């Protein structure tokens, strides 16, 4: 069992989940509802990038096996997801007066609208970015790891974005205000923070990260109108595991959930991986149950520690 390969794949998949879960967690803590449209926001980003890539695909040289145009398209995807989220917030969420459960249900409607529009424009079939598939990186093949430069690009960009968010949250005025508002919105408002403006910025950052996650998901697998929705529960699992409202928890949760999802095949070969256990030992669970395992972990976490790993016990 090529454990290293599974870990490498888990790392790539985790990067995508982290991008989704950090954004979801930000919005959860500041807009204060479980946004079921977050997965489809990822889809919006992916398809916007697909369209943009059609225009700028040929631009520039190549970085990590991807044309520079792809990174331009990535920026377009991020911007489009953020823009769509802001328009939705201004048009739909802000005028609503229905409480957090009403917002949750509304966000399901929003998710369907996003998905319906995308499906109208691009059909329900899967499609791909027009980048030629790469061979696995030669230097890593002897170790049993078969990942491409695209995968490396996904991980590196995700790290850059997450570190950027960390800097923003810790060292900028906006970040401090966001943290204050996540902690206590009332107190933040009476302290003179313009909370509606911070709320908008949160949507921009959260949806932008989701857009980036969607683009990478499209590069990792392929694009389909259901791609984001299919990932949504995994992203929720990551947010819950990390602790709702905690951005750093969401990073950790995203990493763990992505890893668990990709490492499931190890379960049936546990004996050969673990020391001190007979080689024939294993839990016979196929990869097809990987997501079921993740969801069960999510429910278990909710039961044992509803505040998550990094959340404060209330």
């Amino acid at each position, binding site marked *: 069992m090529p454990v290293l390969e599974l870990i490498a794949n888990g790392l790539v998949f985790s990067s995508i989940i982290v991008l989704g879960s950090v954004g979801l967690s930000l919005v959860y803590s500041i807009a204060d509802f479980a946004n079921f449209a977050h997965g489809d926001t990822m889809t919006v980003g992916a398809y916007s990038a697909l369209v943009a890539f059609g225009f700028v695909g040929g631009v520039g040289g190549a970085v990590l096996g991807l044309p520079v145009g792809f990174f331009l398209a990535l920026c377009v995807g991020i911007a489009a997801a953020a823009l769509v989220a802001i328009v939705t917030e201004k048009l739909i969420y802000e005028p609503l007066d229905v409480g957090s459960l009403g917002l949750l249900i509304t966000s399901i409607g*929003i998710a*369907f609208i*996003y*998905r319906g529009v995308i499906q*109208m424009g691009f059909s329900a079939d899967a499609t791909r970015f027009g980048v030629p598939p790469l061979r696995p990186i030669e230097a890593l093949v002897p170790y049993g790891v078969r990942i491409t430069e695209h995968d490396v690009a996904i991980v590196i960009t995700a790290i850059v974005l997450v570190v950027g968010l960390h800097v923003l949250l810790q060292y900028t005025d906006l970040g401090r205000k966001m943290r204050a508002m996540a902690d206590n919105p009332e107190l933040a408002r009476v302290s003179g923070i313009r909370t509606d403006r911070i709320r908008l910025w949160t949507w921009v950052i959260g949806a932008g990260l989701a857009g980036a996650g969607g683009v990478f998901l499209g590069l990792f697998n392929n694009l389909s109108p259901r791609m984001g929705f299919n990932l949504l529960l995994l992203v*929720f699992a990551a947010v819950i595991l990390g602790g709702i409202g905690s951005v750093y928890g969401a990073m950790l949760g995203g990493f763990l959930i992505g890893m668990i999802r990709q490492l499931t095949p190890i379960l049936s070969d546990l004996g050969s991986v673990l020391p001190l256990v007979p080689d024939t030992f294993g839990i016979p669970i196929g990869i097809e149950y990987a*997501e079921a395992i993740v*969801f069960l972990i*999510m429910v278990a976490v909710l039961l044992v520690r509803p505040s998550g790993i990094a959340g404060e016990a209330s």
Partner: protein
Amino acid sequence: MTTSQDTGGYWSGLTVAERGVTAAIAAFVGLLFLGLLTGVLTPTYFLFLVGLSGMYALLSLGLNAQWGYTGLINFSVAAFFGVGAYGAALLSASGSPLAGGFDPIFGLLAALGMAVVLALVIGVPTLRLRADYLAIASLGLAEVVRIVVKNKQDWTNGTAGIRGIPGFFENWPVLSTFPDAMPGLQIHVPAGPVIELGAPFYGMLLNVALVFAFVGVSYAILARAHRSPWGRVLRTIRSDEDLARALGKNTYSFKMQAFVLGSLVMALAGVFYAHLNLYVQPGDLDPITTFYVWVAVILGGSGSTRGAVFGGVVVVTIRQGTRFLNEFAWLPVDVAPLRLLAIGVIIVLVMRFRPEGVLPPQKELIWPGSVDEAATTPDSAVNQSTRGDGDE
């Protein structure tokens, strides 16, 4: 309302929304009959639609008992529907990978039993959770059920699904031969097509009778339960759970009871679906079913039993009505995304402009007797005053 009242008095006793709904239903029924007379709708398909509406009414009645009465935000409707369908199919179908070929009655009982077990399996861990966590957790557990049904080949036939499900009345003394025994009828519509009523029509008529029986029983039980002291506790839990607990109620236990009750009604819808469709497959457990039922309940009005029925009919209209758009070849749209879009827009519009739903519960929560007593003496005066308001 006393029976001696004239229809005009009844009409003015309705709210604006109720009048609108009544008028819309009348127009819709008229449209359907027009479709029947012009041959756009065959009588068999018309009955199929009625059966499907009944099925969605059952699903939304079940969800309404959980969300509308008790405030449980259950996103695992599809799982209970699927368990009902698979429970019925596994026991009664000839193509069942387990012990098939039993009488559908046993399938019904097995489905209800499985629904209770599933309700406990999902409810015991999740019903203590906060509302939005409950939504996510129940959706996740419903997906676990779907993944298991899809991949547990030796139990469920996997993605191939189960065929060979008999009609519900196959072994009943008179009803089993009823469709063939009835005379074929031909109705000649003046200046229209010939409408034929044959064995498929009467078979479908039996299905409709079955779902009406299911809906009738469920409606009676749920409406009665809602008004009972038990239902009042549920309503208290919905509006303020801490208050209910402070009054000495074991809220967890009450929530579990409502959850099981609602799940049973949803499974009943699944049983009906298995015998209507005669084929079940894992796609029937897709989460989209859950969201359709949610649309039905919030559109109808959370907590309103008749609203749930109304919402169920609207959902069938959206699901089946969009199929007709396929006939207009010049429309440059694909129907599947249009349906998705319509559902999304309805959710957003209802939450924006009428979050309490089209038919919110009003008189339903009052014992009919108390309305009669209060209304006897000032009856005419009340009506006059409302008329007076209307004139101004």
